[in-house]
């Protein structure tokens, strides 16, 4: 039993020490998942029968600065749709909860402010998960400038 525990400990420690360089210097394997160029302008994706457009300003989109997020919805939304919100995160890395609360800004448009933080690993692929309550969630995966 003790032997098994020792082997397990060595295995786990080795994994941590070996994984660290990978996490610190990760070449971004999520590059292929990018589905949006927010530096160029607004991005539109489809959720059920709704077009969800996300725009982030100022452009280009940089980490560690105050950003304005705007979500515009078009389609067959329920009449009493609650306010959408955005969860910012990094694919494959737990960065803690970072939610941008949106407020109504006219017809089917919602705005809020937030910050995309910088990861010392150097990874620059971020994800904005736009949730429309009772409808669903759509992910915008994009590159951020550090």
């Amino acid at each position, binding site marked *: 039993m003790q032997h098994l525990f020792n082997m397990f*400990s060595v295995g786990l420690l080795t994994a941590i*020490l070996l994984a660290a360089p990978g*996490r610190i210097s990760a070449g971004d394997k999520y590059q292929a998942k990018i589905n949006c160029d927010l530096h160029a302008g607004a991005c539109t994706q489809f959720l059920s029968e709704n077009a969800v457009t996300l725009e982030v300003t100022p452009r280009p989109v940089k980490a560690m600065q105050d950003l304005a997020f705007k979500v515009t919805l078009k389609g067959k939304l329920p009449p009493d749709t609650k306010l959408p919100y955005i969860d910012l995160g990094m694919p494959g890395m737990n960065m803690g909860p970072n939610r941008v609360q949106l407020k109504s800004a006219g017809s089917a448009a919602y705005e809020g402010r937030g*910050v995309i933080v910088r990861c010392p690993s150097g990874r620059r692929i971020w994800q904005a998960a736009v949730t429309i309550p009772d409808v669903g969630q759509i992910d915008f995966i994009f590159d951020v400038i550090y």
Partner: protein
Amino acid sequence: MLSTETLFLLYLSTGFTVGFGHCIGMCGPIVVTFSLNLKEKNILVPQLLYHLGRTITYAILGGVVAAAGSFSMVAANIESFQKGVMIFTGALIMLMGLAMAGWLPHWNVFGDHSKAGAWISKSFGKLLKAKSTLIYFPLGLLLGLLPCGPVYTALLGTARTGMDAASIFQGVLTGMGLMAAFGIGTVPALFLVAKLADLDWLKSRAIIYKVGAVLMMIVGILFVVKGIRY
């Protein structure tokens, strides 16, 4: 709007989950280095002092960000200092690895040709030989400033709390408390990793010890490189 008690619980649980999901990979090598460096000594008090120092730094940052009501403003001001801390940490891990492997005789790290060189060598030597328990507290204070995504995210929340507080003083206190809760939440994961590296069986195997030392050197170099490029 969440109650203060709920916020504290949220920060504590976020620290806990981020600890296992993020800190083990990014900061695990640091606590492993300390554990191995302590060799036959009990790691409990040094590790707790390190985490206490780290948590106090988080709390101070939380207070400052809450008072400023802006995360990005504070972050911009401490960025270059954080870069320095990252390079320092990498150098420390690297040198501890060299010392563990026995490849760093007499702590002559920078050569003693000048008074400054002698002073730096002596200082690093003291750090590398940090078998004294108390040194881990200031190390924790300093390394709490390491650039870290989840810490930034937690600070974003404290900036909002600061803006919503009835007074600056209340905002500062809440911000400090929240970040302290976050820091405490990260301790179990990092302590578990440190404890794994503290097994007598492991430390008594010279070959494993040397392999660990080499891996530490690699991690240290990567920290330095990342710090320079940060």
